[in-house]
């Protein structure tokens, strides 16, 4: 169904099945992404302050599940700080690893969804379609990073906290799976601005997800790795760069820079 054209926006013509097939059959269909959003996290700088978690919660309308639900393990935190320590205080060695959806190129969660509520889009992101999710939770089982979170019940915000909700992001109902989206609403907004500006590409640093924006230590760098001049492409060349659970060949888009100790 073609939408009614408005005066300023050009309308994309509907593509026929044959055209879609031809595009699919063009070599490099998977490799040719519009953008390849990547995040680098410098573990040397991360101090575990959890500002990223609070920012994510505010930006993406994450519910506050309450003490009881949290104690039962039903937390809702799209980004979490994993803490690993050795030794006893004061000789303790502590490491923080912020883990969010790694937006894997070969995501195990995408294949198993029976209704295709999660798939890989042309920006290299693993998208979650809340409306389509029927809640089988198999994607959460298949994810090795454990970054998918399920809405076990409907959530409500005490007045007047619902005024703080982000209007660009939906509020999910019970039975729906959710996870970090690299703040896809901000990406969409940036792409819209770029298009309005005359169809240019989104510039490096023009948009960052909430967690990257909030980090006081500037441990996180976000950008498009297709752009060779971006900060994130430079940080990929760092000798400390590694991917979590690389041996599983999920090809995540989140790169960590190892903390060098001693």
């Amino acid at each position, binding site marked *: 169904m073609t939408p009614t054209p408005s005066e300023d926006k050009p309308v994309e013509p509907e593509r026929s099945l044959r055209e879609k097939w031809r595009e699919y059959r063009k070599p490099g269909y998977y490799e040719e992404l519009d953008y390849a959003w990547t995040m680098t996290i410098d573990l040397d700088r991360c101090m575990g302050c959890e500002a990223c978690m609070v920012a994510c919660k505010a930006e993406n309308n994450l519910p506050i599940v309450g003490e009881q639900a949290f104690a039962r393990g039903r937390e809702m935190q799209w980004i979490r700080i994993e803490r690993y320590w050795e030794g006893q205080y004061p000789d303790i060695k502590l490491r923080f690893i912020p883990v969010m959806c790694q937006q894997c190129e*070969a995501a195990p969660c995408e294949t198993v969804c029976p209704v295709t509520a999660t*798939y890989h889009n042309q920006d290299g992101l693993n998208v979650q379609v809340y409306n389509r999710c029927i809640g089988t939770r198999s994607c959460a089982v298949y994810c090795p990073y454990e970054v998918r979170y399920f809405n076990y019940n409907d959530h409500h915000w005490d007045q007047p906290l619902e005024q703080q909700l982000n209007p660009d992001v939906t509020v999910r109902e019970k039975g729906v799976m959710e996870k970090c989206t690299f703040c896809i609403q901000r990406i969409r907004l940036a792409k819209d601005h770029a298009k309005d500006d005359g169809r240019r590409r989104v510039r490096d640093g023009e948009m960052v997800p909430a967690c990257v924006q909030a980090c006081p230590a500037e441990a996180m760098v976000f950008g498009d790795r297709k752009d060779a001049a971006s900060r994130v492409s430079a940080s990929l060349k760092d000798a400390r760069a590694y991917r979590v659970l690389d041996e599983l060949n999920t090809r995540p888009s989140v790169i960590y820079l190892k903390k060098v100790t001693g």
Partner: protein
Amino acid sequence: MATSAIGLFVDPHGALAAAAKLKGAGFAAPAVISPIPLEGAEAALGEKKSIIKRFTFFGAILGGASGFTLAAGTAVLYLHPTGGRPIIPFPPFLIITYEMTILFGILATVIGFLISSRLPAIRDRAYAPEAAVDRFAVAVTCDDDERVAQAAALLREAGAAEVRNVQEQRP
């Protein structure tokens, strides 16, 4: 009006022999009604061919084709890359094809069975309820009353415990 002569036998061997005799005497389709399938039926009454196999075979082929078309066709209709896998991967679609092959094979077998045994039966046909318990019946249906009488005589000769004449009711 068609009449049937039904001879009830206690011994299945006798029933089969009587049916063979009736066939030899030129009666069209003597039916041996029994509570269990009889081993000697084909020997006495001639070999039967079953077309159900063909139904199964073509049903299975149709199922395989539909299964693959369903899976591959719907995958291509709305291109959703998942997990870096190809849009038309063979291992998963082979499974779908396999299951649909068996599904259609099963349904085709049922349809073949119903068609070749002419069930469900609409008209009342020659039947004796004892034949579902422990008697073996031989039934012959003819339009000509005289022939029916001949059949009844043959059955009595062959040792039927009881012979009945049944008028078929036209609906």
